[in-house]
């Protein structure tokens, strides 16, 4: 049976429609995906993201060990800061893309994709070395995400004591609504916002109180719950990769355009040899943004054709609500395409014209 988060009943009562995602039964929308999308762009929306996995790495060699399994570099990152990184196999393809919360040099929390949690746990266990302990704490955390321009104001209202809010990609422990939580300035929407981790074993932790308290505090700001459907259109507009689409066990982070998160001057790590070679010799594939010219909705897996030849496929596509256009991301063998170049997406055997455009489709509005 699929897993449900502790907020399932509250969501059901709010009229959520549910869908399957990464082994979980999660709300896809409460009212309408486009309305929830616009809400996050203009005010704020509240997501239950408890399906995300949390793996704690502790020990004297924690930083050294994590640096061995990720492509980014966590060593210079100060405490209370978060690092995004792909985690690769030896062949340079991606096990998962993760967030690393540096609590201290000897305690780091990895936040991983729901559908990859077990795989990641096994992979990390198989690589363990030095003075390091790994614990999968996924079932002990509830995580909600408040995303949108009104998020900061709403968070301020529910803090138990006035405190400086963490900046972009920082986190701190705070008390809100009478509960201790980890407050993180991160998200997956391209808007300013927060992700809030509630540690369930704490006696004061009450997921429904957190969920309802945020909705109540943001009522006059128009905050409403939002589902996975909007989460997907929001991340697509911001061109944030989704594992299984832009990243996978057959795609390298360089092909996905994530060079910023792959370090070549770091000590040896898993995948470094292959990734360095790709970097030096050039890539065989590249991820592009495109917008439809002809009518039609591009979807994951559709072929992309140019001058009669198949040159790749759509990794993610659909309506881009803020632009009110259809478009998406495509992984293409031709690495020399330029903005304005015409490609064709094969939609149900019909070739539909599209044009290469810059990514992201929507300029991210983080508060740095």
């Amino acid at each position, binding site marked *: 049976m699929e897993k449900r988060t502790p907020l399932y009943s509250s969501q059901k009562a709010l009229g959520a429609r549910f869908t399957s995602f990464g082994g979980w039964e999660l709300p896809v929308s409460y009212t309408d995906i486009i309305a929830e999308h616009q809400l996050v762009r203009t005010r704020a929306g509240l997501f239950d993201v408890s399906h995300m996995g949390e793996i704690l790495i502790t020990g004297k060699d924690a930083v050294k060990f994590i640096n061995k399994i990720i492509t980014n570099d966590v060593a210079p990152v100060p405490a209370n800061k978060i690092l995004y990184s792909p985690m690769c196999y030896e062949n340079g393809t991606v096990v998962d893309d993760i967030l690393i919360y540096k609590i201290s040099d000897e305690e780091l929390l990895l936040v991983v994709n729901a559908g990859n949690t077990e795989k990641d746990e096994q992979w990390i266990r198989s690589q363990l070395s030095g003075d390091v302990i790994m614990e999968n704490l996924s079932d002990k955390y509830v995580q909600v995400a408040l995303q949108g321009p009104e998020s900061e104001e709403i968070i301020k209202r529910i803090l138990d004591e006035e405190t400086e809010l963490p900046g972009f990609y920082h986190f701190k422990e705070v008390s809100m609504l009478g509960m201790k939580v980890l407050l993180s300035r991160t998200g997956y929407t391209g808007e300013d916002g927060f992700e809030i981790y509630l540690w369930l074993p704490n006696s004061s932790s009450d997921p429904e109180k957190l969920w309802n308290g945020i909705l109540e505090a943001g009522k006059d700001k128009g905050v409403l719950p939002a589902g996975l459907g909007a989460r997907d259109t929001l991340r697509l507009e911001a061109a944030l990769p989704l594992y299984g689409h832009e990243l996978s066990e057959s795609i390298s982070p360089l092909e996905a355009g994530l060079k910023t998160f792959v370090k070549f001057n770091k000590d040896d790590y898993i995948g470094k040899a292959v990734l360095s070679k790709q970097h030096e010799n050039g890539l065989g594939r590249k991820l592009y943004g495109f917008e439809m010219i002809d*009518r039609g909705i591009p979807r994951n897996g559709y072929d992309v054709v140019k001058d009669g030849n198949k040159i790749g496929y759509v990794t993610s596509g659909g309506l881009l609500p803020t632009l009110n256009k259809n478009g998406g991301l495509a992984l293409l063998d031709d690495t020399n395409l330029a903005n304005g170049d015409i490609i064709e997406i094969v939609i149900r055997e019909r070739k539909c014209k599209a044009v290469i455009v810059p990514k992201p489709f929507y300029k991210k509005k983080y508060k740095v």
Partner: protein
Amino acid sequence: MEIREGLYYSKDHEWVRIEGDRAYIGITDYAQDSLGSIVYVEIPKEGKALSKGEVLSVVESVKAASDIFAPISGTVVEINQALADNPELINESPYENYIAIMSFENADDLSDLLSPTQYEELTKGE
């Protein structure tokens, strides 16, 4: 959820309205509500002959693409071009916005379609 009298319903949530030798075909209120915001309707080709159960059109919501099956056999005699520019019309009034009109040739085709009461039972069970 509105279920209209005087229409035939398929188990795939299409409705059929017979007017003489013409069969208007659309998707039900239940279907549009389950799909959510409709962003694309593939307009069938006029003159296309279809057997019952073949794909007549595709309706796409933000979430996914859903095939619409011909609930009867016949030929597409008229299409609803307005849906090309305004697919959301189906969300607004699913029973006013047909996807196609097919020729109605065989009264037996109606025999395994559902009555409004039967269709209501079907949607309650889902």
